[in-house]
């Protein structure tokens, strides 16, 4: 199986580990992520007011490029890119007036023909979690994982439709396929503060603290995420949280593809764990997984 793939800006630099592990694992699982040529930034924000069409020109061009190379599916790994592309496509499909304005402006013929998929969705719907389980060479036994969804992977549910809003299970099902144990984690759909990290950092610190404390209270060894912004907030805010509360228990936060790579027996040296503030290698070594 071959899919058009949109990595996005952050996966080329700050979240290289999410991208590297995702690509390596796809080959091991029998699907190819064929990077879209000449892609641009998706814009990293979906415009929430209906008179800001310009912000949709970038993502629409990306979708039209996918269509023009003959593909009807586009895979994203980053939750932000996934959300922006998916919501833009929803407009292209359902709002004739806005679609006409945007496609006329960028001079492209596009009517929402491309289906935007998240990598997790490919694993669930196209590969299947049972087939994934069979490919696992190093089951992550004894590892307790808090599966953190955040906002953009799920909401708004009518436009994204990946899973239920209040109690999604795709991430937990994925973790079970790898042999690890998902913990009960009520804060899994709460916001990490997102872009407020550059404006109201206190919001990002407090939100991260609540999410991480909830994961620790429920016995998690680590938190996994699909989003570079969530990973950054949850990992990078921990020194600040420790300053506010020395009794706070730190916890490693890393990408789901990194854990997938460990379970598939890929070389952990390529996983780039050293860039995390709370280095997960120690934990994985302790559990005998790397």
């Amino acid at each position: 199986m071959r899919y058009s793939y949109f990595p996005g800006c952050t996966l080329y630099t700050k979240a290289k580990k999410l991208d590297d592990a995702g690509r390596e694992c796809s080959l091991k699982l029998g699907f190819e992520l064929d990077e879209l040529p000449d892609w641009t930034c998706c814009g990293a924000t979906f415009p929430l007011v209906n008179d800001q069409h310009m912000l949709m020109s970038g993502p629409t061009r990306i979708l039209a490029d996918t269509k023009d190379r003959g593909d009807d599916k586009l895979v994203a790994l980053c939750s932000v890119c996934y959300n922006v592309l998916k919501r833009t496509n929803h407009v292209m499909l359902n709002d004739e007036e806005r679609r006409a304005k945007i496609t006329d402006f960028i001079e492209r013929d596009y009517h929402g023909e491309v289906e935007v998929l998240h990598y997790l969705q490919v694993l669930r719907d196209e590969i299947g979690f049972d087939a994934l389980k069979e490919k696992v060479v190093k089951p992550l036994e004894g590892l307790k994982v808090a599966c953190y969804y955040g906002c953009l992977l799920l909401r708004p549910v009518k436009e994204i439709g990946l899973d239920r809003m209040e109690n999604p299970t795709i991430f937990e099902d994925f973790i079970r396929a790898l042999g690890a144990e998902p913990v009960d984690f009520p804060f899994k759909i709460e916001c990490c503060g997102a872009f407020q990290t550059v404006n109201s950092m206190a919001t990002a610190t407090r939100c991260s603290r609540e999410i991480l404390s909830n994961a620790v209270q429920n016995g998690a060894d680590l938190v996994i995420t699909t989003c570079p912004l969530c990973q950054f907030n949850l990992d990078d805010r921990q020194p600040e949280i420790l300053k506010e509360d020395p009794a706070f228990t730190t916890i490693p936060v890393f990408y789901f593809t990194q854990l997938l790579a460990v379970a598939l027996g890929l070389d952990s040296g390529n996983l780039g764990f050293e860039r995390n503030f709370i280095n997960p290698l120690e934990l994985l070594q302790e559990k005998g997984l790397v």
Partner: protein
Amino acid sequence: MKTIISGDQIKSDFINRVSEISGENFFNCYQCGNCSAGCPSVDEMDLLPSQVVRYLQLGLAEEVKNCKSMWVCAACTMCHARCPKGVDISKIMEALRVLRLREVNAQPRVDLTDFSQDYLERAPQIAIISGCRKFLPL
């Protein structure tokens, strides 16, 4: 404090414009408060999300224009997900932000020179780009 409510202020240009570009009808809200209960940013807000909608229903444009809440909303859309009437407050907050940022003398809400080089090297592009898009004059 005395609050004056009039038909004129409910139909004011600013209130109409917020409704128009957000695409939301404030009068769908019956003030159950689910949005405020689930909002991650309420600790930093001066008006709760449900209060912002109430003020808009009453046409209190100045109070809403000057509230801090719009600037600390993280657009996580939890308010919308839990609203029994389907009101999307993230769109209303965005409408308030962009109307402020489109004013002639609008000031930037973030200044990247305030951040250390070290922070900018650690922060992912999506944080910087989305932050700039939400907080710089348009």
